[in-house]
């Protein structure tokens, strides 16, 4: 048994940590969030230079041969900085799918753009009616000669306003919620018939409603087969869970540190409010929630490469833990900061908002409790 990080992973953490500290303090972050585009292409380019975009991929694919633990280290540090640049959708979700399941030709055509920072990707899988069930797919893909024609709408697609490429789930056969018959397609966002309604989200990110109207794609746009589409997608979402668990650790740690510091310095009735036992115990509870989340995050990221059942149980279990812990820590951090915690000026509320989105992202506590029970 060994919970220590390798030397490379420690170096990676130090590198990301100092990059975030030097380039992504809270004011810089808010400037980026409030800018026209809502992200910084310059920062994204620096991610590429630092090798972050290549970190999890194998050497054959031009990567640095890392894995889920490296992603975990990176996401935790990006979480501390509330970084909005689309590491999760581009590298973890879409890059992950391409590296594990795309054909050599598809990999050759698409991975260099991701690793080099030229291309941003979004995973378009949820639909207005699908809630958290990735098998609930109405978007259709009909064979048309050598290729396919896509029709349908995808909902709240994170990072889609920035993306030039999408991976889209679409039904090729069967009924609305059938597990078989779902294909994953690589779609260039500039293809005729793709339209987006872009908007900001609660957590300072951007998302789109993406509509496909008779969108023609070639035959080699399909990743894997219609029989494996859902399992490829579910595996990617579980990797996404491993990554946002780590990201949430960054948020919780930042909130706990800020809250303890605030309670040590904020004076009422002539003493620091941190001297009140009722508040001390509250901060102890926040600390314990964080520690339990760390444990579940390590657990899930070690189990992502195990068999399907074990992977599902691990990721749903971890998602329940961080859903509950993130909510508790976020709400209490605001409460203990009093009125100040309610203001846009402090970072506290922004961590709280990102944690609130994470609670829902890839399925909320109720969804994953059920999935855990049935896995």
């Amino acid at each position, binding site marked *: 048994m060994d919970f220590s990080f390798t030397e490379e992973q420690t170096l990676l953490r130090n590198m990301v940590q100092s990059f975030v500290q030097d380039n992504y303090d809270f004011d810089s972050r808010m400037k980026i969030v409030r800018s026209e585009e809502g992200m910084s292409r310059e920062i994204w380019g620096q991610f590429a230079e630092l090798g972050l975009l290549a970190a999890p991929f194998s050497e054959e694919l031009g990567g640095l041969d890392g894995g889920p633990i490296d992603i975990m280290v990176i996401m935790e540090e990006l979480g501390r900085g509330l970084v909005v640049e689309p590491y999760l959708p581009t590298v973890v979700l879409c890059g992950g799918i391409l590296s594990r399941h795309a054909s050599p030709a598809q990999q050759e055509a698409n991975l260099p753009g991701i690793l080099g920072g030229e291309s941003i990707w979004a995973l378009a899988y949820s639909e207005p009616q699908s809630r958290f069930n990735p098998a609930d797919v109405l978007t259709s893909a009909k064979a048309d000669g050598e290729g396919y024609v896509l029709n349908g709408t995808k909902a709240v697609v994170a990072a889609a306003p920035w993306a030039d490429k999408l991976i889209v789930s679409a039904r090729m056969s069967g009924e609305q919620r059938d597990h078989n018959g779902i294909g994953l397609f690589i779609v260039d966002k500039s293809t005729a018939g793709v339209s987006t309604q872009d908007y900001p989200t609660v957590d300072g990110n951007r998302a789109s409603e993406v509509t496909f109207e008779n969108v023609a794609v070639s035959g080699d746009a399909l990743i894997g087969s219609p029989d494996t589409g859902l399992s490829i997608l579910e595996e990617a979402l579980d990797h996404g869970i491993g990554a946002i668990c780590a990201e949430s650790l960054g948020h919780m740690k930042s909130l706990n540190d800020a809250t303890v510091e605030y309670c040590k310095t904020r004076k*009422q009735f002539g003493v620091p409010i941190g001297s009140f036992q009722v508040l001390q115990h509250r901060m102890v509870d926040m600390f314990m929630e964080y520690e339990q989340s760390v444990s579940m995050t390590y657990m899930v990221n070690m189990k992502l490469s195990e068999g399907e059942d074990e992977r599902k149980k691990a990721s749903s279990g971890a998602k329940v833990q961080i859903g509950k812990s993130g909510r508790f820590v976020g709400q209490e951090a605001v409460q203990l900061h009093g009125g100040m915690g309610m203001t846009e000026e402090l970072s506290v509320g922004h961590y709280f908002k990102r944690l609130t989105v994470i609670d829902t992202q890839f399925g909320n506590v109720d969804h994953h409790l059920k999935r855990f029970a049935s896995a």
Partner: protein
Amino acid sequence: MDVDFTNEDQAFRAEARKFIEENYPKHLIGADRGDLSKEDFLAWHKILAEKGWVAPSWPEEFGGTGWSVTQKYIWNEESAAFGTIPPLPFGVAMLGPVIYTFGNQAQKDWVLPGIKSGETWWCQGYSEPGAGSDLAGLKTRAVRDGDDYIVNGHKIWTTLAQHADWMFCLVRTGTEGKPQAGISFLLIDMNTPGITVRPIITIDGGHEVNEVFLEDVRVPAEHLVGEEDKGWTIAKFLLGNERSGIAGVARSKKAIDRLREIARGELEDGAPLLESASFARKISELEIDLTALEYTELRTLASESKGQGPGPESSILKIKGTEIQQRITELTMEAVGNYASPWVPQLDRGDNYLSIGPDHAEGVSQTYFNTRKTSIYGGSNEIQRNIIAKMVLGL
């Protein structure tokens, strides 16, 4: 023991409901607080003023309605059930009672009519950056200079000060003895030179609260309410009034109805979310807690009718009421699933703004974030628990 209302009470309820239905401004039905203009806030207030129902709890000689405690409760319940924008609390619920209890004749004559008509918009200058839960630690100084006070200081969390004509303000006139001594209650014209109002944007993206800076603000001494250095009694009296009605039972009932409506429209694997056992259970738990709170409030009301004023028990209503409000907003946000994420604050919307996702998802996350304030303001829930520990349990 029974919880039935008398026939007279029932008749009053019917009359109240009819009046609201027939007279409430149509364009404000279901309006979101964040969208309201100054005129919107005052529209219903002015209709009630005309009817003579704007300040039911005031003594009749000052324009109250003479309703019984039960009738006032019924009125609040009907108003909440309809979802009215209640008259602004700063004048009617807070300052009015202070003026007719502690003010001199001249103050009664000019302050009370302006509150009732809605002509004067008041804001509350209580909290300061260093004086929140510990209100008596306030530092804003008022120094006597001939017939005036010169006021210097910094108030914060001043709700809707951006619309205010006047502010009632706690200031420090003396520095001797305990911090509670040496506080005075002053009325300040917001148009006086030296006052700056700076907006505070909250995490829901709204602009409700402000900072108010006072720099050499000259206030005529005739605007002192009560005696100099004796303002703490008035401050406490006002806070007692602020807490009544904070349980918000009727408004929470309405919010639960809306939650159920949303859960009926949201689908989980093709079936209404409302039919999900785990979700339905959470709504039921909320409803049961709300029923307990309703009966606790009715018990308070019954003893009030017998002349026993609301004591420290009203802290229970504040704590439980706000916790329930927060859980409702949390569950409503949960109900809308992925569509809780889109975020276009009111302030950022252009004329061509198109809503995203189902209409019922609109604003639910803003409401969730906004409602986090309720366990902080009006005496934080930690302070309320201290009150119960000390005053009720004698600890």
